[in-house]
Every structure is written in structure tokens, then in C-alpha cells.
């Protein structure tokens, strides 16, 4: 069973988001997402200063199995992206909620995070996904 930390927020497209003390939002993909993708081989992170909208594809992860867009969970500006992933995409597989973070966004509205799923909702969603029919 995949790990779903209860202190994070989640999207239906399997990103997680964490509100940091400085008001920025760190974004990555969930343990469930990295598990279904398999070993990652390339990660394309967004350019700093680019403006993103919630639901907009702004990064790409490519695994042995498939390429997958990473969507911004909130409106805002990219303030940082994890440059280590260029050389070490496996960090996403090994530590999806830690060293495998993908980007940091300064949200237009910090409250917009409240619109995302909490851990229980996300866990419920992936459990339903895993069950056939």
C-alpha cells in the first residue's frame, strides 16, 4: 500500500502540495504515482519565474513505462525547481515526498490549497482506483 502523508494536500492527477512557512508551495508526485509509473528516467522541471495556472501541465516525468505531465495544483509563479532530478530522476522513486520534490510555487492565493484533497480523500480515491470495476 502506498504512503499518503496526512499533512499534505493532493490533486486528482496525483500531485502532492505542501504549504511551507515562507508561503510557497512545494509540489511533487505521490508515492502511488511513482509506484504506478515505475523507474523514472527523465524529469523535465519548469523554468523559474514562469507563471502557471492550476491544472496546467508544467513539468514532465518520463518512466520506463510512460511519460506523464505534472500539473500545477494552484495558480502562481514558479520560484524554484529541483535541479538534482536532471541527473538523479530516481530520487522521485526513492523519496517522492522529500528529495524527490519537483517544483516550488508562490501561490497567488495561499488559501487555494484548501480546495485540494486531504490525505483521507486521496487515499480513498486511490483505493477505489485500485479495485477493479
Amino acid at each position, binding site marked *: 500500500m502506498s504512503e499518503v502523508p496526512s499533512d499534505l494536500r493532493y490533486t486528482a492527477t496525483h500531485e502532492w502540495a505542501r504549504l511551507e512557512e515562507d508561503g510557497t508551495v512545494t509540489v511533487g508526485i505521490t508515492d502511488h504515482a511513482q*509506484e504506478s509509473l*515505475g523507474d523514472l*528516467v*527523465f524529469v*523535465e522541471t519548469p523554468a523559474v519565474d514562469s507563471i502557471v495556472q492550476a491544472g496546467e501541465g508544467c513539468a514532465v516525468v*518520463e518512466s*520506463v513505462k510512460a*511519460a506523464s505531465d505534472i500539473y500545477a495544483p494552484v495558480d502562481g509563479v514558479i520560484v524554484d525547481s529541483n535541479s538534482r532530478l536532471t541527473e538523479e530522476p530516481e530520487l522521485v*522513486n526513492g523519496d517522492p515526498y522529500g528529495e524527490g520534490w519537483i517544483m516550488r510555487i508562490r501561490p497567488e492565493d495561499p488559501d487555494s490549497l484548501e480546495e485540494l484533497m486531504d490525505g483521507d480523500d486521496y487515499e480513498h480515491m486511490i483505493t477505489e482506483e485500485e479495485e*477493479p470495476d
Partner: protein
Amino acid sequence: MGSTLRQTALHERHRQAGAKLVPFAGWDMPLHYGSQLDEHRRVREHAGVFDVSHMTVVDITGPHALSFLRRLVANDPQRLVHAGQAMYCCMLNDSGGIIDDLIIYFLSEGRYRTVVNAATRERDLEWMQRQAADFDLRIRERTDAAMLAVQGPRAETLLGECVDGLTARRLAEMKPFHGMELGDWLVARTGYTGEDGFEIILPARQAGDLWDHLLEAEVVPCGLGARDSLRLEAGLCLYGQDMDEHTSPLATSLGWTVAWTPEERDFIGRQALAEERRRGPEETLLGLVLHSRGMLRRDVVIHTADGGQGRVTSGGFSPTLGRSIALARLPAGTQGTATALLRGGETSVQVVKPPFVRQGRILIDAGL
């Protein structure tokens, strides 16, 4: 969902080893045991074991076994002279298209064993039965058999630790594509990874013990994911992707598996194949290396420098090269650089002659 899938004798062990199990050709098979990239690298550098019991083992025995097989496949099984010797073949239809690729083992006079693909099992068996009507022989699927592949530079030593001393010495002396029956085991120096290694067909009830011994000897359990990337690097074709009943061996860079002599041997598909040979095949299977990041995947369209077009038949990430590689069906004679239409737009690819990697070494020169 799982109830309709077939399970190999090692299913419970795969679970215990932490396998991610996926449906494959009607079987519930391990995709990987954590990381398919690690498994790939361990096979190139050390040794891994694959449960390939989903493969269909079919024994063909009787006075006409040889003459039947000489009609059935495009390679010539008469060239198998040593007990245990193996041969890679294509089984063709009348138009020269490939019904399946298979290995034929010569066990002893009038006794042959074939290993065909799981995905084509029913069609293959039906075809064999139909073609066998006028021959005195018996076709028997060995549903009682399991099959393990132990592959990698350390395979000989580590498999040797799991068998008795005499068998270990025999393994060490075994030449590539040779094998031997040891009681009710068939052990041969064959594989699908581009590394040294062995494939062992044994009674399913004994497979668990061998598996346990191999793991104790630090042979790494490997899944179908690594098996696919290893065979791709080794430039080995996969049935259903790189070839099918609409493509001939000549159009699939498998011309070397067609035995044209003796001329009087009338194998199925010979006439159509001879005509294609006279005309010269229009297309062939070649390798591609992607210069930049990104991934060549099946069905990606390729434009050649001289205006021709082709497509990727199987592609993926090469852990050894650290970039994407592919096999592609391209106009015969294509070389140099070509263009692939990927997510990011038009991307340059290098056309190469497979294999990309064998025995741990990179064999292509693509400006790496």
C-alpha cells in the same frame, strides 16, 4: 481480476520477494521486484534469474519429428547434431509471414523440444497440429514444466553453486546454444538478454527449490521489465511487436535464420520468401539511438533523410547507454540520421545496426 490469470509454480515466491505482478499473455507475472533498472544493471554486471514459465514448452517426438520440423520452420533443424543443441527459428505461414519465433532443442533421435511464445500459444499449437496431419509423431505441450533463465556474467558460477559438482563442470564446458538433458531437466546455454547464461526447463514441482537456491547464491530476481530492456539492448526481436504474421524474416533482419540450402527442402513459406528475396526486401528492422532526452516508444513515426518513412516497433530506455533506443521498421538501406516525431516535436535520431549492447559492452558508435 486475478482469478482468471494463470500462475506459475513460483507465484507465491514472487509475492514474497515483493514483485509487482501484472497480467501478461494470460499469466500473472512479475514486472519487477522494486526497480527494473537495478535488475537490468545487475544482469549486465552480475547475474539475475527470470521466471519464464509462461513460455509454452512443446515436445515433438516420433519417427517423423525431424522431417516435420524441417517443413515447419525456415531454419533447418537437421543442422542440430549434438544432443541438447538449440536453434533459433521462425515458423512461417504460406506467404512467408512469421507465425512465431521459437527455439528448437534436439534432445535425441526422434525427440525435439520447442519453446514458443505464451501470447501465441493457442495459434501455434493449432498450426502445428494442422501441419502434422501427415506425419507420424506426437505433439505434447509440457504444462508440467517450469522454466527459469539465469543470465549474466556470473551465471555460470552461481548456477554452478546450486547444482552438484558434476553438473557444474558440465555447465562450465557447455558452449553457447548447446545444452543437455540432466535427468528430467533440460539445461542450455541460451537466453534473451545478450549476456552469458542458461535456461533451465524442469518439472514445475522442482522449480521452487532451484529458485530458493539461486536467491541464496545472490542471484537477483528479475521481472519482465528488465527482460524487455535487456533484449532490446541486445537487439533481439519480440514477437507481436518487431515481427508478426505480416512481416517476413527478410524484412525483420532475421534473414540469418532462413536456411536456403539444401534447395529441395520445402519449408512452409519458402516460395513466398524466395520471391521476396529475388525482389529484395523493401524494409528492414534497424536500431535507433535518441541523441537527446526523451523516449522512443512503439509506433513513433520516423522520417529518414531521403524522404522515407518508418515507425518504431519497440523502444524504451537503455540503462547501459543512459538514453532511449529502439528497433524500427525502416526502408531497406536506411542509414545516418533520421527524425523522430516525439512529444517535444521533431527530434534527431541515429540509425544503427543492432545489437546496441552485448556482454556488458556498448557495440554501437552513435557519438556517445
